[in-house]
């Protein structure tokens, strides 16, 4: 069987598969960023963290033969980047956005430096669960081959959504993000909370990077990230700081990104490359449609420097 046999059904299938495959790094980075921004700080450095995470996961997986150890290494590297960002930002008069941009370049540069020897060797992949095994159509099988990280990401989104309302840590995070004064009056130290939140955010971004190098596309190259780390930051705003929204936005974004390749695969030969821009156009359109000149962004943490 081939693409022509299921005909145009191939397009939605490919979009679904693409959404699942492409969205995973977005899910992790945007959830990480959602945690960081909910604490009142913005970390633009996640792009660098993502790339460094991809490199370190790949390197450790090559050396140890275990993708899971690679994943841990990426999370740990991300944690370090996050903590570093959080630590610098606690000094007075330091701007979190500027530090983020510096760290973005620093992370990528460092990854390229350490990653040179790992461009050739191949590393073991993270496992996927073949949910499509019941079907004997290869497209269905391909689309429903779901990586475990995607499932973990989905569960994490639901968990965070619940935790922001129902746990002490979640409420403390929101308090700090919304009003430093209130937090201090409660005896909380906003800097400590933000440090932790930036650290966790970095670790999640590192995991997103591990997915890139250990599953899809599944190898370490210097062009491994096409700005996922930055787009994820936009996704968080787009999702109004809601973890479930982040998950949905990541899926939407992944699906839109799969539109171009899907059209190409069913034999559209002209103009399909325009659809490669679909995710960005979609984001712009939705951003414009959901914003209002008379209201400030609903749900924006009060201490965030971009909405203050």
């Amino acid at each position, binding site marked *: 069987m081939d693409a022509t046999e299921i005909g145009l059904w191939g397009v939605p299938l490919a979009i679904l598969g693409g959404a699942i495959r492409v969205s995973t790094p977005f899910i992790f980075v945007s959830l990480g960023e959602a945690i960081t921004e909910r604490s009142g700080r913005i970390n633009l450095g996640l792009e660098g963290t993502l790339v460094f995470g991809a490199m370190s996961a790949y390197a450790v997986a090559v050396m140890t033969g275990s993708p899971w150890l690679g994943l841990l290494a990426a999370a740990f590297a991300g944690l370090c980047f996050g903590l570093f960002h959080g630590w610098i930002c606690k000094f007075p008069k330091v701007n979190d956005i500027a530090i983020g941009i510096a760290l973005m370049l620093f992370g990528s540069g460092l990854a390229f430096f350490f990653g040179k020897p790992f461009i050739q060797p191949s590393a073991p992949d993270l496992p996927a669960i073949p949910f499509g095994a019941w079907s004997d159509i290869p497209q269905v099988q391909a689309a429903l081959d779901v990586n475990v990280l995607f499932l973990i990401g989905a569960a994490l989104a639901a968990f965070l959504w619940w935790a922001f309302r129902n746990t002490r840590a979640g409420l*403390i995070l929101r308090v700090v993000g919304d009003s430093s004064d209130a937090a201090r*009056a409660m005896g909380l130290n906003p800097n400590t909370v933000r440090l932790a939140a930036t650290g966790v955010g970095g670790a999640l971004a590192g995991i997103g990077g591990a997915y890139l190098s250990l599953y899809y596309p599944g190898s370490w190259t210097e062009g491994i990230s096409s700005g996922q780390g930055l787009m994820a930051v936009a996704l968080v705003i787009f999702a109004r700081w809601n973890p479930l929204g982040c998950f949905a936005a990541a899926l939407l974004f992944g699906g839109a990104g799969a539109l171009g390749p899907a059209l190409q695969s069913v034999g559209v030969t002209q103009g399909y490359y325009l659809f490669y821009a679909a995710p960005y156009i979609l984001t712009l359109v939705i951003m414009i449609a959901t914003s209002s000149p008379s209201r400030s962004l609903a749900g924006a943490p009060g201490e965030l420097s971009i909405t203050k």
Partner: protein
Amino acid sequence: MSATISKKAVGVETIGMTMRFGAFTALDDVSVKVSTGSFHALLGENGAGKSTLVKCMMGFYHPTSGDILVDGREVTIASPRDASALGLGMVYQHFTLVPSLTGAENLVISREKVPGVIDWRKERAALAQFMERMPFKLPLDVKVAELAAGEKQKLEIVKQLYLGRSFLVLDEPTSVLTPGEAQEVLGLVRAMTRAGDLTVLMISHKFHEVTAFADDVSVLRKGRLTGTGCVTDLDHRQMATMMIGDQPIAALDSRAEPKPDAEIVLKVKALKAPDRTGLKSIRIEDLDVRSGEIVGIAGISGNGQKEFLEVLAGQRPRDAGEVTVRGTAYAATRAEARALNVRLIPEEPMKNACAPKMTVAENISFRTFDIDGNGKPVSWISASAIRSFSARLVEQFKVKTASLSSPIASLSGGNVQRAVLARELTGEVDLLIVSNPCFGLDFSAVAEIRARIMKARNAGAAVLLMSEDLDELLELSDRIVVMSDGALVYETPIAQASVQTIGEHMAGHH
């Protein structure tokens, strides 16, 4: 869970408390004793150091020197958490509730021991039970940002009681409450002090509250303790003297005769604008303000006065209608405001009229920094001109600030108001739009500001005054208009004004 309000009261005493901000001494060797189970009032003019003193007690500031005794034992309070562990709590002058959290979330998270996972069903039940003991109802399931100012203030106080405090500081707790609400709230804490459950230290500018509720009073002046004693031994005049010394209090200019044929300066016609919820709208059918008169707008807060002011200030778009000043359409641009001499004193001046992190000098110069003496735009902004201009105004309006280059956010509540007044009342004023100008000001400042508004009126300015304080309106206005449910519902010249009728219209009983 510790949501009990029956705990033993504790007394707090400060000994030789001194606090310096840089070279500026905000507190100078202050020793105050608040005895167990008493209701103690702390008086003082704006910037006297009242908030600073109580913030030192709460561990929010670290005093330069001095000690704190709790129940006679010396303690170190390094942070609000330490204070809270000792049973000390405070309602700050500026709200400290978290706006995006609901009331219930705010209450629960501020508790000392919060379980890792919160069982909301249990918490809600406990909160409902606790709220039954309060003399008023509060919606606990909406975001604090959506509550009215009075509700927020009540929630702040309820929060402290919920936390089971033994010693409670209230920093100007009633400034956003209606007299009825103030009675409720202060009556509640008063009863608790009588029962020995609580000690209260209240900062206030309202003498009548002090006499009605407090047992003892202490007075600060320029960072020094100038007097302390039993409320029953002191009358208002003695308290006033302790606060400001023998300075004369500004007297209101006598009212120049209004001319009925004076020029109409502000004209509002068929104005329609969305209110803050976006669900309803405010409609101002017809309002004229003539040169040389003060038109007062009365109303219970939340009836559209704020939105009306925002439209006039250019902060809120209007759906329909026209606003004209001297016959020219007015859309509140900077150029129009300058050409037509329109000045604005909004409420919450820190939020609506200041750039908090910019300096006092810069904030005072917002209207004038880019023009020279003849109103021509300058090509080069002169820092020294800004300094000398603002130095003159700071002097003239008695703004107390550590220096001209301190950020305006470091000023005490009342002094921010003075700084804004200084900026808005200087120069030629044809139309003055004012909202709650005396919010949080001490009595001598109130007298002075009212005198300045009256002076502007007598000099020919048209004044639109919105206030929640009916006494203020009755004292200043030539005409009073009542706003209720987004519309102007009643108008009366001051000579025929009756508090009774105005009150009925305010409550919407007509």
